[in-house]
């Protein structure tokens, strides 16, 4: 059953992308992002039963990407720089950690007059214009054309800037791994930041992300973003539900559909370090878009002002020269 519905979904996605030909479970190239189609995922909160199969699948599929820190950690200065070590707490699964890239959040809410516990996977939203990648000083966090945001573990220095600028504070830090160890481990850097990379390597090979493939309830679907947005709206219309991620932070490549408003979910979920909220989020990079427009005009405005100034000066000089010449006569 699961396979059939997944296949039929891929077909729908393909039809939307205007491509033909699909076989088996492999993702066609349009879904691998080879043709620059940004892919998004849809998380249908109604369907999730909280079994955590996705959490296990993620841990298994990405085990070789998880940090293997060297201990003891190099001493870091100044003393305010704290070690962040999750290597002895790999099994923590009630929040995001460098070893838990997706976890199940739950919310007790009233749906249609009935008290219910809703569960749903939380992980990186894969923003359409991700501030974590835009503002990473080294280009370690990057956005891919297929809509994935990923942090390159060999380049990241663990400065936590991505976490600071992420509206959901998603990336999690592990000390004792990465490039900083080879530079000035005591004075700069503090490990590597980890988060969901939407199984980019599986997508490249044409497989589905592990959490999607292993969910017994087909909670998540993946496809071209436009198609996912359409699908989200169709479900929301059908159930009188709500969407999160379509416009949050300027739009994300992870959309949630819920039978209750996200303000309600947001109030009901446990929030804190590694446990993201469901707040309304404006576009973090809007200032950069607006100022970029001003930047295009700026040099021309300067040139024009300079030219006008020279023209006026030339006229004044010419006028005074004329006057001088007349006075001489």
């Amino acid at each position, binding site marked *: 059953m699961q396979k059939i519905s997944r296949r039929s979904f891929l077909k729908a996605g393909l039809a939307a992308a205007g491509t033909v030909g699909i076989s088996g479970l492999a993702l066609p190239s349009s879904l691998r992002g080879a043709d*620059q189609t940004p892919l998004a995922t849809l998380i249908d909160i109604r369907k999730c039963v909280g079994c955590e199969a996705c959490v296990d699948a993620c841990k298994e599929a990405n085990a070789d990407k998880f940090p293997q820190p060297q201990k003891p950690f190099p001493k870091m200065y*100044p003393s*305010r*720089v704290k070690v962040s070590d999750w290597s002895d707490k790999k099994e923590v699964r009630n929040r995001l950690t460098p070893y838990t890239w997706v976890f199940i959040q739950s919310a007790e809410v009233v749906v249609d007059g009935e008290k219910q516990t809703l569960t749903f996977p939380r992980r990186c939203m894969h923003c*359409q*214009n991700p501030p974590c990648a*835009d*503002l*990473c*000083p*080294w*280009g*370690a966090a*990057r*956005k*891919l*054309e297929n809509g994935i945001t990923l942090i*390159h573990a060999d*380049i990241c220095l663990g*400065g*936590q*800037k991505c976490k*600071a*600028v992420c509206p959901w504070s998603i990336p999690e830090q592990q000390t004792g791994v990465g490039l900083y160890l080879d530079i000035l481990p005591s004075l*700069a850097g503090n490990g590597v930041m980890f988060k969901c990379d939407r199984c980019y390597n599986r997508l490249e090979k044409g497989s589905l992300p592990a959490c999607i493939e292993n969910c017994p309830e087909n909670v998540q679907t993946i496809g071209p973003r436009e198609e996912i947005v359409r699908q989200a709206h169709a479900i929301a219309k059908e159930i009188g539900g709500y969407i999160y991620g379509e416009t949050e932070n*300027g*739009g994300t490549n992870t959309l949630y559909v819920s039978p209750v408003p996200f303000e309600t979910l947001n109030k009901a979920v446990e929030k804190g370090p590694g446990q993201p909220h469901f707040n309304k989020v404006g576009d*973090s*990079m809007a*200032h*950069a*878009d607006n*100022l*970029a427009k*001003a*930047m295009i005009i*700026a*040099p*021309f*405005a*300067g*040139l*024009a*002002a*300079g*030219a006008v*100034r*020279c*023209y006026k*000066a*030339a006229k004044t000089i010419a006028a005074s020269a004329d006057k001088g010449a007349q006075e001489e006569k």
Partner: protein
Amino acid sequence: MNQNFFPEYKYISRAYIFIIFMMCLTGFGQMPIFKRYYIADIPGLGWLAQYYLTHYIHYIGAILLFVISGYCAAAYFFAGRHHFRLTRSAYIRVILLAAITVTGIFRVLKNLPDIVFSPNFTMFIDISHLIFMLIFLMAAAWFLFTKSGWLMEKARISEN
């Protein structure tokens, strides 16, 4: 020197130095160092650790530098070059500023929603922007030390 000819020179050069200083400060502020090294703890400097604020100021600074560059370029080409020429240190600075500007423009483009560069190119522009800036800073400090200005009167050159 060129005060009579270009009376606003004094103000523009002051504004230019101030903006370059702010660009360095907010540029360095893009790296997670001001908080680690207690600089943001100094009263009045807390804003240096606010990434979005320093980013915003960095963009405003770039806009102002573009206006100043446009103005000075126009003044030089329409009037100044008949009496002055750019010194060698000015050429070096112009080239370095151009390199910083070009890499900076690519960084601005990268931050637009619909533009995606390859990861390697992104890394290249991110790091080269920083390296060009460091070279420029050293050069500018050296020229400040040797008192090398931007313009030289043509008459003086022919005398030499």
